[in-house]
């Protein structure tokens, strides 16, 4: 089999099985977990096959065209870093799915859970293996979507919904920044393929400012995903998800994407001056703040969430300070974190499941009940604190060594990093001790006994495996060393030096030991004071501000919408008329000079036409002024019939004929209508006076409309076209249409299709009238209930706002 086959198999298996599980949920039900497990195992196997098939260290690109004209392709890159992250994702996926099978209660929506989990896994694998920037972005956002579904899995809880929404909004909006950054990179480099960019490099010299901006956007994307300051608030709230999800997404994989991205773009951007500054200052700052928050929290998952943020801060800052040749121990730090944090999350899940309690202040003395879990927790917590004999110790020693080196190479920035790392390490020892001691040691509170039920053995296996890895790796580091050397990627990292447990009495060891002692003292102080002072200051709870912002945003949009719209249709007409008048007035203001003709032209008046016009005007004004409907109608009809006469004066016999007929039918029709209305309706009209402002507006609108239309007519008639198109019709009517009446031939011959359209309009109007007449019969109750209320499908928009 080809290498590409295994690569596609690794990514597509979870994607396809995710859909299968979703569709076959009625059949699979609780068995869907085993299907998911199978899928994850296939992925692990495929990635291992890819690793065996290729030469390591090295890289292979597998590509299929997608949108070649834009340089967007389904191209995947298998190299050390993508294999490393891919293996973490799939192996932890296997453990987490196995854990979840025993964790989830019966009756929960298993298929939905595993379907989302596999979708997430596929998206993660796609992200780490992507070779195309746009493809990477697509998978990147897909992980956000899948995590939204998983965090909001228990959507009956409002905290779940809020957590899911925060995670989605923060990660997807920062993801968009990432997209912009990628496009900016592609603009100047001319390629979207990471492998090509790696060989050619970015034109940093020519486009320094542009690429610095692009780098900032990309880094912001990474910060959002990895919950770095100021986006640190979403991760603790995402802990509303079921524990397997927290263990998988929010410790081992998704939040690591920010770290992965920093590693991926490290060779591109690291030579920019802002790169070390931005990454180190923000990430190391986040590291310290989050560690302190972890100490100040009481919820088990919140403690772990903040400690995750802290660790991610370290990893990102680590890439920030990396030397040109590449960083040395990134895999060690990442793997170490995966071991202990995944394990701790699962332990916390077991504890919360067994006791129904997640507040560390209400737990204690569980060692007797759950010895295996206790030992797991002990190893994991020791790893987190960096005790000898664990990968945590190796990681911490290397961290200190490198940070001291950085002090030499980065000066002040290195000093800042050193102080941050020391503070973080001390605090980390304190809350690591607290997690183990306060859950498993001491006196057991009485409430636990009532609720306690023992966890199944299978549930305890996955965390145990991870803790064991941390232990074995810590005792026999030579195993990891080989693997890391194989996975190096030129430009990103170099083969790590020899890892040994014992370095002799080095300054690092002294500092490390003293940090442990200070950390334990800090823990002891906390125990003495009963952690009463521990509470996260409100100013740093950005999630509150974020939620307020969301509410304010929706209120503001609602305000704008209701300000620009009206529930009453008659409020729209004034706007339309005001706009029309404004348009006309603007037009005349533009052509003001052309109104000069009013002074020049001779004012000759045809007296007969003027007389008829005056009569029409009088009749219409009558319709306006008269009170009763019938008299108004009569006045209107008079105006209509006089218009016929006016048409005659304009030498338009056809118009006059049509007008007489139409006017007569209209009169009869409206008369019939008015006859159906009771007198009370008409009397009711008089009492309905509109407001004074509206009255004034109506008058002003009417007068200005009249004046503008008069000016308009004068303007278009003052200088008629010397040869209007009508003359052609007059000349052609007899030879072409064999008819002497030009108006008739225009209608039925020259512009016959217009007339057909006119007839169509009449038919449509007739059908509409028919529809209005065919009303369903209302029941007696409905008649008694009175009018049916205003039209509009019963939707009242304002009501929703309250």
């Amino acid at each position: 089999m080809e290498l590409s086959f295994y690569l596609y198999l690794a990514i597509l298996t979870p994607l396809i099985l995710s859909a299968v599980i979703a569709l076959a949920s009625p059949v699979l039900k609780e068995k869907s977990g085993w299907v998911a497990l199978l899928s994850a195992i296939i992925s692990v196997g495929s990635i291992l096959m890819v690793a065996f098939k290729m030469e390591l260290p090295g890289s292979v690109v597998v590509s299929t065209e997608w949108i070649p004209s834009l340089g967007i392709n389904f191209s995947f890159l298998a190299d050390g870093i993508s294999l490393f992250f891919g293996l973490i994702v799939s192996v932890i996926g296997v453990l987490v799915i196995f854990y979840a099978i025993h964790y989830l209660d019966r009756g929960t929506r298993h298929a939905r859970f595993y379907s989302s989990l596999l979708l997430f896994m596929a998206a993660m694998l796609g992200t780490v293996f992507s070779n195309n920037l746009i493809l990477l972005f697509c998978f990147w956002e897909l992980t956000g979507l899948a995590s939204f579904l998983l965090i909001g899995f228990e959507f009956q809880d409002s905290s779940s919904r809020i957590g899911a929404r925060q995670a989605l909004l923060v990660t997807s909006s920062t993801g968009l920044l990432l997209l912009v950054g990628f496009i900016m990179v592609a603009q100047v480099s001319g390629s979207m393929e990471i492998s090509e960019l790696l060989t050619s490099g970015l034109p940093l010299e020519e486009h320094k400012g542009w690429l610095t901006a692009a780098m900032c956007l990309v880094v912001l994307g990474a910060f959002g995903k990895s919950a770095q300051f100021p986006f640190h608030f979403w991760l603790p709230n995402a802990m509303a998800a079921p524990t397997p999800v927290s263990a998988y997404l929010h410790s081992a994989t998704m939040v690591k994407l920010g770290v992965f991205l920093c590693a991926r773009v490290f060779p591109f951007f690291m030579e920019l001056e802002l790169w070390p500054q931005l990454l180190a200052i923000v990430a190391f700052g986040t590291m310290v703040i989050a560690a302190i928050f972890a100490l100040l929290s009481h919820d088990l998952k919140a403690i772990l969430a903040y400690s995750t943020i802290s660790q991610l801060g370290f990893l990102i800052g680590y890439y920030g300070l990396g030397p040109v040749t590449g960083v040395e121990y990134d895999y060690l730090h990442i793997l170490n974190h995966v071991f202990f944090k995944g394990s701790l999350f699962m332990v916390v899940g077991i504890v919360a499941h067994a006791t129904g309690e997640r507040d560390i202040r209400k737990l204690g003395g569980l060692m007797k009940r759950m010895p295996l879990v206790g030992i797991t927790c002990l190893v994991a917590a020791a790893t987190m604190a960096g005790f000898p004999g664990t990968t945590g110790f190796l990681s911490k020693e290397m961290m200190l060594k490198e940070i001291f080196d950085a002090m030499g190479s980065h000066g002040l920035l290195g000093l800042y990093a050193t102080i941050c790392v020391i503070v973080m390490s001390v605090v980390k020892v304190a809350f690591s001790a607290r997690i183990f001691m306060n859950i498993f040691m001491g006196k057991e509170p009485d409430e636990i006994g009532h609720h306690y039920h023992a966890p199944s053995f299978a549930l305890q296996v996955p965390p145990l495996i991870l803790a064991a890895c941390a232990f074995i790796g810590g005792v026999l580091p030579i195993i990891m060393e080989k693997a890391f050397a194989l996975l190096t990627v030129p430009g990103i990292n170099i083969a790590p030096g020899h890892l040994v447990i014992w370095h002799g009495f080095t300054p690092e060891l002294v500092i490390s030991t003293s940090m442990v002692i200070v950390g334990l003292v800090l823990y002891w102080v906390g125990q003495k004071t009963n952690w009463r002072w521990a509470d996260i200051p409100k100013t740093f709870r950005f999630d509150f501000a974020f939620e307020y912002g969301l509410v304010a945003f929706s209120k503001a949009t609602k305000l704008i919408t209701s300000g620009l719209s009206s529930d009453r249709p008659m409020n729209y007409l004034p706007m339309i008329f005001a706009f029309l008048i404004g348009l006309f007035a603007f037009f005349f203001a533009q052509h003001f000079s052309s109104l000069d003709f009013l002074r020049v032209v001779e004012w000759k008046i045809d007296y007969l036409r003027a007389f008829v016009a005056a009569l029409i005007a009088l009749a219409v004004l009558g319709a306006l002024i008269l009170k009763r409907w019938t008299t108004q109608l009569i006045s209107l009809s008079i105006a209509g019939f006089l218009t016929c006469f006016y048409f005659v004066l304009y030498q338009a016999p056809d118009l006059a004929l049509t007008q007489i007929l139409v006017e007569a039918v209209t009169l009869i029709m409206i008369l019939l209508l008015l006859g159906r209305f009771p007198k009370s309706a008409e009397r009711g009209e008089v009492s309905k006076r509109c407001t004074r402002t509206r009255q004034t507006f109506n008058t002003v609108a009417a007068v200005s409309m009249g004046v503008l239309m008069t000016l308009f007519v004068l303007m278009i008639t003052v200088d008629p076209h010397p040869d209007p198109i009508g003359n052609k019709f007059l000349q052609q009517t007899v030879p072409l249409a064999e008819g002497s009446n030009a108006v008739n031939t225009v209608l039925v011959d020259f512009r016959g299709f217009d007339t057909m359209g006119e007839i169509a309009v009449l038919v449509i109007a007739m059908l509409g009238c028919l529809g209005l007449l065919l009303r369903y019969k209302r029941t007696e109750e409905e008649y008694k209930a009175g009018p049916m209320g205003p039209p509009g499908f019963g939707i009242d928009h304002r009501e929703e706002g309250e």
Partner: protein
Amino acid sequence: MQIETAILVGILFGCATYMILQTSFVRILFGFVILSNAANLLVLSMSGDPTGKSAPIVRDPNALMVDPLPQALILTAIVIGFGMTAYLVLLLYRLFLDQKTTNAAEMYAETEQEH
């Protein structure tokens, strides 16, 4: 230039605007009828001063005749205007049957009180 037509069109448009802006549906209907007449006259004014011209019925090719095109357009407009008027009349009828009112302000009065 036909001054009296211009003034007449202005008055008709003004009256139509005023009536359409009322809340009474009957008045709005009347306003619409006036508006269609006003629009017809506006188009008619474009055929120029008819003084000394004959109707566009060709008997003597050399005779001076008015422009037939605006008349043809108006003829279409009158018929369509009639169709619209008929539709509005029946709409108003139906509205009254369902809502027991002929006034927009009254029809929406209930929703206003609720808020």
